[in-house]
Structures are given as structure tokens and as C-alpha cells.
């Protein structure tokens, strides 16, 4: 059976309306995407799929996703003004509605973000109650919730790399909750997604990113902080 709810779930959370799956969940997806990009995007191409495709305006998910990209938290009253604030801050955005995408969860959004030379693509699902899942990231299967501390390592698919990385994390006293690997092709790049119970020290991230077979290390602490 699932874990018992808490008093905090019964009277709470404090949130921006109208609904946690259309606002809080979507803000979280935006926050994750911003962290994957590493900064505020200059341009955002935002595609809402399936049930989101019809309702995103009525439910304010368009404002919520921009709010996330602007790094607002889920209970920030500025979410409502996010369309204007994005314009003021020079964030160019465009929305697209796509139905009929049967491979996606009913409430799915895809973000294609650009900042200078850097481009990323993040797909997020809002599962209800503000809970999210990131099924794909830059074309790799990712499947993380961002509720833990998440480490995303893109690296050459060399032998022993996973064992090596787990070792480094263990030495930093990190408890790994989940870990998954996704490859684009044999001996090609691999994407390693590690969810941890606690955060890592900056030096660990630095060390990992300096390894010559590692292309990039992204660290996403608990998405609400």
C-alpha cells in the first residue's frame, strides 16, 4: 500500500490555483527545464499535448510553464503575471497544441529551450497533485521526478563508468535512490540519471565533469528549493 498521507497533505499545500496538476506540476516542469539549460532561456518553444493541448489556457498552464522557466516557485503569486514578466525579461516564447500523441501521458508538455549557443529539449508530465515525471531529456530516456536530488551525467559509454560514478558518490556519502542509463547507440553517448536522497558537494560535481569521458554533469537539487 502507498505511504500514508500527512497533515500537510490534508491542509496544504499552499499553492497557486486553479489545480495542482495544471499549475504546481507545470511550474515544476519549467523549473527542471531551466536547470537543465543552466540559465534563463532566451527562447522557448512550448508544446502542450493531448488533454493539455485544449485546456492549457483555461487552466493557466501557459503562465505556469513560463513561471517555471523564470524560476518562480509553485506558490509564487507572480505566476499569474508570468506572460507579461517573460516579455519584460526578454524571454521569447511560442505555444503549440498537439493532440493525438498517444505515446504521451495526457498531461504532457515539451520544452525546446535556447540560451545563446545552448539548446536543450525536455519533456515533462504532470501526474496529478503537483507530482511530475521527466520521461525524456535531450532525446535520452530519463524518467525522474525531481523530488529528490538528481544528477544527470552525459558521458561516453566506456566500460566501468557506472561503477566508477557510483563509487565516487558513495565516497561522498550519497544514498542513491534510483539510477537509470539510456544510450542512443552502442559505444555512443549514454545518459545516466541518478536520484539521491541527499545533495552532493560542488567539488564532486566538478570532479565528475572534468573526467575526459564525461561530457556534461547536471545537478538538480530538490526542485522546490
Amino acid at each position: 500500500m502507498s505511504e500514508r498521507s500527512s497533515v500537510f497533505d490534508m491542509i496544504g499545500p499552499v499553492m497557486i490555483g486553479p489545480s495542482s496538476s495544471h499549475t504546481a506540476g507545470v511550474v515544476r516542469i519549467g523549473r527542471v527545464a531551466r536547470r537543465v539549460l543552466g540559465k534563463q532561456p532566451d527562447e522557448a518553444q512550448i508544446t502542450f499535448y493531448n488533454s493539455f493541448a485544449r485546456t492549457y489556457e483555461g487552466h493557466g498552464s501557459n503562465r505556469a510553464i513560463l513561471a517555471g522557466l523564470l524560476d518562480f516557485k509553485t506558490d509564487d503569486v507572480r505566476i499569474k503575471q508570468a506572460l507579461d514578466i517573460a516579455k519584460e525579461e526578454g524571454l521569447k516564447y511560442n505555444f503549440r497544441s498537439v493532440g493525438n500523441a498517444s505515446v504521451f501521458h495526457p498531461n504532457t508538455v515539451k520544452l525546446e529551450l535556447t540560451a545563446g549557443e545552448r539548446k536543450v529539449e525536455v519533456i515533462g508530465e504532470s501526474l496529478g497533485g503537483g507530482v511530475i515525471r521527466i520521461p525524456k531529456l535531450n532525446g535520452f530516456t530519463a524518467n525522474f521526478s525531481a523530488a529528490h536530488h538528481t544528477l544527470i551525467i552525459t558521458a561516453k559509454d566506456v566500460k566501468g563508468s557506472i561503477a566508477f560514478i557510483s563509487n565516487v558518490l558513495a565516497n561522498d556519502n550519497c544514498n542513491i535512490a534510483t539510477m537509470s542509463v539510456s544510450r542512443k547507440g552502442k559505444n555512443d553517448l549514454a545518459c545516466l540519471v541518478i536520484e539521491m536522497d541527499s545533495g552532493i558537494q560542488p567539488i564532486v560535481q566538478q570532479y565528475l565533469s572534468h573526467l575526459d569521458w564525461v561530457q556534461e554533469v547536471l545537478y538538480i537539487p530538490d526542485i522546490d528549493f
Partner: protein
Amino acid sequence: MAFLFDSFEGWKQYCEEHNKSLHETVLAFEAEQKGRTKDEVWAHLSNAYHVMKDAVETGLHEDMQSQSGMINNGAKKVFNYPTPVLSPEFQRLISRALAAKEVNSCMGRVVAAPTAGASGILPGTMYTLQEIHQLDDEQIIEGLLIGAGIALIIEQKASLAGAVGGCQAETGSAAAMASGAIVHCLGGNIDQVFNAVATTIQCMLGLVCDPVAGLVEVPCVVRNASASAIAFSSAQIALANVNAVIPVDECVEAMGEIGQSMEARYKETALGGLAATRTGQAISKRVLIQDIEMLPDEEQQEG
């Protein structure tokens, strides 16, 4: 101690055996299950109550128009109407419940209690109760603790989600939480609190979830007002020891049973009830995005 919030019977028994009040046991549950101290829980709830009162004021003073136009400053109109149909207090109760819920519909800050759709009920009832009876925040927070305990049991035995149990699960549960809290704050004992919950559930049973255009606006906003009124009527009945006849646990079971047999079109899908009326459909056509690209079949596999 999780068993405590499996049934009202078990909750009462625990209180009696340990000589504890209802709200103390909720604190103990949270400490044992979630490792949170009394101070942490207390701080969370006083902040939540603060946000609730803020939402009421925001709804009564700022412009509350929703994107769809269906919500248009109704709470203010009710608050300022010259003739109270019952009493000025009743008028304030109704306008406050509307106000907080309108804030939710208009992308303002609220407390989901237990859900976003029902976020006007505890603010409307607790704010008004505090004002009428000159209660201090401590007493209201005790009431909220008991409300949380009530919701934990309903979640366990039935559901709190409109998509699972219909609107009885959302606004019905919030009304039950509120009526239990009201009775506690006015000095009621355990039986009276539970009787209020039972009576409230009896009044809210069977309510379907049929939001127009799938937006949490119509009928959600007015149901927050009616549920608040029912919370008070049940509290009035329960305090006088008028027995609900069907015990509270069985009332909740009935709610679960009704929720299970409800057809999907009455569970937040916007396919039945008010959402399916001619006007509901016309609104849906107007406010929902119609210009949608449909993927050709081969692209569906791309992901």
C-alpha cells in the same frame, strides 16, 4: 499508530484509552509517521490559516475575473448586497467562501484543503467562526488539526479526489472537516464532532463532479459556498446531540460506495452533468483551444 486514522471508531477508542483529545492524537500521528515535531506542524498550520485568511481578503478586494470569464467578482457582490437573507454573519460566510475559491480559480494563492477545488470552505467557515465567537488562532488551529484527521480517514476509506469519488469527495470532505472543526471549537466532545461529520456527509452524498469546460469554476465556486453552509447546519444539529443514526464510519463507507459506482462522466471528465448541458458545451467550445494539430499516425511512435 497509523491504525488511528483507519476509522473514526479507532480514533475515538485511542483517544479514550490514552486520555487524549482529538487534536493531540493528530499531532502524535504526524510525529510518529512523519517525524515532525509539534512546533513544525503548528507552524505549518498557522501559516496555512494565514494564507486562507489572505485568500478571503484578496477575493473580496482584488479583481477576480477568470480567464474564461465564468468567474466575475461574485464574492464582492454578495458581500456588498444590502439585504442579508438570514443574517449579516451568514452573508459574510457565503461571500468569504466564494472569495477564497474565486482566488483559486483566478490563479491566486490558496491552501488545498483537502484539495484545490474545495479551497474556499475552510477559509470561509473558520474565518467567520473565529469572528463570531471571538476565538483565538490556537483554537482554530486545533480545529484544523481535527479537520486533517477527518480527511485522513476519508482518504483511507473513500477518496478526496473528484476524479475518483465525484464532488462529494472534494467539497463533501471539506465540509465534513469544517463541521468537525466548528463543533470542536465550540466545545463539543468527540461524539458531537463525529456526529457533525456524519451529518455533513449525509448532506453531501452523491454530489457529482461536472465542471463546465473542465475548469475548476462552475459549479465549483458556488459549491464551496453551499458546503460551508452545510458545515454550519450540521454543526448546529450535532452540538444539540441530535444523533445522525448512521455512524460516521458507515457514512464514509457509503460515500466510497457511491463514488465507486459513479460513472466516469461524473468524475471530472467534463462529459456529464452541467458540463454536458447545451450551455456548458457552448462555453467549452468557446474557452478551450480548438486549433490543435493532430499528429499523423507514424509520428505517434516518435515520442
